[in-house]
């Protein structure tokens, strides 16, 4: 049940406890309690809207920065990851397998903003040996939601 609730809320955080109860064949009280528990236990970190910022603001830029990092003895990548994630400009930080170590998504108003942030704040961290910046040119889909163009219902008009 926990897992089913999480799957539904991850699909649409606006589903009410009642909606979920109906869909899962449970009752509203039980579901509400489960959700409260999931929040308390930290399975659910928060709820926010998926905004198409390209539509809202004249200037919105984001970039994926690949960082090569020399891990510290005992601490590994934790220390540097923790210091990076504190920046407001940083949307997400992931430790990666493969040819680089940390994947950092950075947002800003202009290309210069982002470039400056990388040069001044990220590249200067002691353990960072290399940065590679990829600017996002167009967002097609974000968090399962299609941003560019509508997915049309192309079913034929065969009603019966």
């Amino acid at each position, binding site marked *: 049940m926990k897992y089913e609730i999480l799957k*539904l809320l991850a699909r*649409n955080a606006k*589903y009410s406890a009642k*909606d979920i109860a*109906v*869909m*899962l*064949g449970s009752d509203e009280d039980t579901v509400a309690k489960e959700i409260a528990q999931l929040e308390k236990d930290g399975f659910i970190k928060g709820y926010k809207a998926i905004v198409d910022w390209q539509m809202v603001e004249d200037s919105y830029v984001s970039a994926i920065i690949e960082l090569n990092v020399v891990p510290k003895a005992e601490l590994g990548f934790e220390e540097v990851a923790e210091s990076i994630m504190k920046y407001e400009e940083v949307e997400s930080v992931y430790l990666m397998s493969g040819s680089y170590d940390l994947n950092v998504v950075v947002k800003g108003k202009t290309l210069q903003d982002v470039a400056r942030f990388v040069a001044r704040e990220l590249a200067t961290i002691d353990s960072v040996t290399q940065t590679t910046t990829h600017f996002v040119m167009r967002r097609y889909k974000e968090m399962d939601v299609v941003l560019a163009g509508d997915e049309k*219902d192309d*079913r*034929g*008009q*065969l*009603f*019966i």
Partner: protein
Amino acid sequence: MMDYSKAINHTVAEIKPSGIRKFFDIAATMDGVISLGVGEPDFRTPWQIRKAGINSLEKGKTKYTSNWGIAQLRSAVSDYVKRKYSINYQPDEEILITVGGSEAIDACIRAVVAPGDEVIIPQPSYVCYEPITRLAGGVPVIIETKAEDDFKVTKKQLENALSPRTKLLILPYPCNPTGAIMEKEDLEELADVLKGTNVIVLSDEIYAELTFGGKRHVSPASIDGMWERTVTVNGFSKAFSMTGWRLGFACGPREIMDQITKIHQFAIMCAPTTSQYAAIEALKNCDGEVERMVHEYDMRRRMMVAGFNEIGLVCREPKGAFYTFPSIKSTGLSSDEFCERLLYSKKVAVVPGTAFGESGEGFIRASYCYSVEHIKEAISRIGEFLKEL
């Protein structure tokens, strides 16, 4: 000057085109209409099935197949129906691959029915049985299934409908549009009535995989004494979201299948080759995908049933297919009026129950092949409509 009234077969000319066609053509031209009308899944065909079709094309598998369908697919069908519904059919001569379940229904009716023969058709049900029977010169004998019987065919109804001229009984379960299913005991009662007759049963099981609430579909052919008289029709459209691939199958005793296959051979040759290759993958490796879709339908089903009951339309719990069939009798409107006024005032398209036979009067069919958000919006508009009546 041609006189087409003399040129055209009068039996065909007398068949009414689907009455709701015009109504939905209007809906299609209106802006902002949301529909609960369609009878096909919103899911795409699972990728691995599409891939299998593409692979077959890449390998150049573009020729006709055997009339019966490719051997590998027939053998997969044999395994599948045994595994799922405990019915045994030999891949050779007892299984025919067809162009959708539709072709199997058509060929089966034509193989069995001669002019003047009676065909028992339970209604409300899918729209094709009656016209195809008439095209074969047969006489439809309608059983009006009742909401209070959960839209099942009862023993008594069957007894009353049977006559010495009865050739065929259609069993359209799980049922479009009512969502009804026939359980083992229900089928056993019918088997009792049929025992000792030469009546053949055409069991249209296209929705067999879509049953809910722990109820598994029971194939009539799995009931004692029924195998020998049953043609089991199924297909890939609904369970595997493969409507556009046009692929189905018919299984039955060799004596009947030989005749059905003659019609298929001369009318169709063989089912689409690409679809047949894709279908092997569907039957062998897609249980998980089907399960995922059924789970999704189940959540929508609950949402829709709860929604209708909440806004004041009595809606029984459908046990199969992907439709709800709420009663609109409380509004005092006819099904046609209800649907038309709902379309014009709230821009929601649903299908009048009468499209599925006169006994559908007082009901509407609403499909839940739509996202939960779409369903909620539609129900909320129908709720407003009811308040304004």
